């Protein structure tokens, strides 16, 4: 008996732990909720113009040439037709919706001490033109609707804009934006007085916007660091209703020429201070993980590569590195807001926006991992069937999966790309051990 007892006591089982990343390949609707965080400080008018001017290219990237916003999705027959076109042609087909908020987090950041659309995570919308705050793919002209909300509510214009008496209301935006164009788009002088704070808190604004999108937000939504104002409070739940759809992916697109000045870190009330990068990034990664959908970040931000900067102006490098950190943590995309020349001209936003479209496209075949894997241990399954590792033929992968170290993700190629609604599970042994404490 003593031998038995000794064996039982000594023989605790031990196991190898793998990370498992599970996804369900997007359903046919392939929903993507895209929230733009616009820096509405005074220095951003030129960039907002460039963003608005090129936005139709982004929308074009999200919808194929045949379909676009005119693709019907009402009936089952429509769905079948779309599915066949998608699977046969491999074209990108995103059921997107767009919304805008600003990097101004506090109620009194704008012209009024009261909360205004776009502040504290609320959605900017132009009530005068009946453009909704959440613009769906079914909108008659989603690019124009986006331009309206962006230029009329979320851009800080100089009080005196160039005049263009030849402009006829309804003409498309071409070249520089004039007072006449804005008057037509927004209503006379309605575009004025939408300037925000110089202390941009892009991460906090994004978090506030998502807090407002759910009826039961996480408890952290109600907390705020010492010395700051409470931007979200009881009663704000669901005030951004419709922003997040069940099962959709959330893409947050930050457009700013400054770094992040958010104040949360370490899950405490102690405010972040200038220079805090990792503490702030980790805090917000945790906060966004508590949101109902997967959140990825794309930042069109200051031109800083960690060593050298271009046209940084007043941007603090630690603030820029916060944005770069959250982009890396969410396998997103960082695009410099200025060209790599001395003129500091805004980058080609058309190209930037197309890259955003490709980022959404990549979500279909690209499955980010949570930890850096021992590549030899990776096993990928689609609906329980083992997928073989892809072979490299003429510098291109053919049927199977491959590991992309730069993105820390597994990509599927050729016939191995998971079909709609299929379960994707990727097992691997992490090089650095399990990153989270186990529950026992």
């Amino acid at each position: 008996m003593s031998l038995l007892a000794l064996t039982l006591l000594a023989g605790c089982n031990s196991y190898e732990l793998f990370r498992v990343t599970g996804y369900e390949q997007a359903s046919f609707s392939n929903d993507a909720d895209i929230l733009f965080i616009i820096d509405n400080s005074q220095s951003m008018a030129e960039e907002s113009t460039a963003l608005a001017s090129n936005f139709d290219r982004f929308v074009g990237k999200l919808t194929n040439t045949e379909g676009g916003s005119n693709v019907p999705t009402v009936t089952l027959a429509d769905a079948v037709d779309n599915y066949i076109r998608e699977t046969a042609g491999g074209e990108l087909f995103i059921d997107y919706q767009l919304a805008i908020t600003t990097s101004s987090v506090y109620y009194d950041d704008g012209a009024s001490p009261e909360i205004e659309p776009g502040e504290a995570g609320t959605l900017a919308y132009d009530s005068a033109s009946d453009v909704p705050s959440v613009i769906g793919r079914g909108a008659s002209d989603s690019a124009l609707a986006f331009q309206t909300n962006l230029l009329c509510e979320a851009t800080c214009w100089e009080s005196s804009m160039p005049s263009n008496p030849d402009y006829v209301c309804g003409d498309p935006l071409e070249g520089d934006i004039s007072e006449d164009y804005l008057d037509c788009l927004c209503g006379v002088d309605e575009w004025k007085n939408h300037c925000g704070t110089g202390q941009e808190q892009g991460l906090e604004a994004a978090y506030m916007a998502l807090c407002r999108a759910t009826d039961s937000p996480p408890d952290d939504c109600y907390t705020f660091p010492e010395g700051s104002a409470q931007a979200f409070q009881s009663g704000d739940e669901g005030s951004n209703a419709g922003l997040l759809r069940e099962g959709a992916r959330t893409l947050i697109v930050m457009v700013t020429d400054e770094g992040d000045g958010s104040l949360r870190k370490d899950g405490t009330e102690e405010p972040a201070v200038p220079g805090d990068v990792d503490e702030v990034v980790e805090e917000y990664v945790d906060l966004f993980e508590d949101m109902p959908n997967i959140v990825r970040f794309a930042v069109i931000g200051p031109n800083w590569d960690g060593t050298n900067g271009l046209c940084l102006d007043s941007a603090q490098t630690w603030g820029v590195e916060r944005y770069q950190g959250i982009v890396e943590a969410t396998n997103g995309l960082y695009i410099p807001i200025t060209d790599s020349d001395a003129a500091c001209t805004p980058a080609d936003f058309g190209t930037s926006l197309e890259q955003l479209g490709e980022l959404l496209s990549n979500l279909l075949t690209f499955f980010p991992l949570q930890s850096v894997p021992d590549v030899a241990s990776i096993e990928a399954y689609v609906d329980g069937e083992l997928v073989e590792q892809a072979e490299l033929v003429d510098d291109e992968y053919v049927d199977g999966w491959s590991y992309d170290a730069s993105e820390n993700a597994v990509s599927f190629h050729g016939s191995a790309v998971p079909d709609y609604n299929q379960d994707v599970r990727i097992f691997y042994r992490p090089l650095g051990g399990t990153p989270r404490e186990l529950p026992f």
Partner: protein
Amino acid sequence: MLTLLASLALAAEPAAPVDIGVLKNSDIRVVQKVLYTKEDRLELGAALGIMPFDGFTVAPQLALSGTTHLSEQIGIELQIGGGYGFKTARYELLESPTYGVAVEAYRYLASVQGDIQWSPIYAKMNLGNGTILHHDVYLLAGLGATLEQSVFPSGEITIAPTIPIGVGARVYLNPNTALRVELRDNLMVENRVQSGTWAFKQNAAFSVGLAFFGPAKK
């Protein structure tokens, strides 16, 4: 007449005392006969069991056994078992998106084991002051093999050499039938395919079943 009187006189004479000594404990012997015997009999059994002690799988099991009893104390048993190990709630919590951890566990599928039973105890107990239950208690140890399957989707099959050790009891219902209760710990060496490692594992099973005794051969 004299002869008769002489005979009576001899009969009335007191007998000489016999010294029987002091009664000692060692002089006391169990005189109760073992009512339910096993020696030289074949025991066939069926049991339902569960393997609940592993942290990540739980397996119901059906086991069939045959035991030949060489004596009242020693028997040789062959047991075959089958079942299916399910992931526990703990496992499912771990592999949820919250933790994203998959444990390289293997589920029980089947086993074949041979063991020797040693039954040093035969006893009776009074149940409810009304029923006397005859029972024995035995220990077992043996060798065997366990068929297991990875809980990962690949479902690799592995055969693990196994040393079963255990303790059990037979409660006799009649001379040919017994209720058998057993705790058997299966000590295994697993070849874990994904990680390419060998690991020691124990997976204890608790079972309850019926055993049927055949006639003695002699």
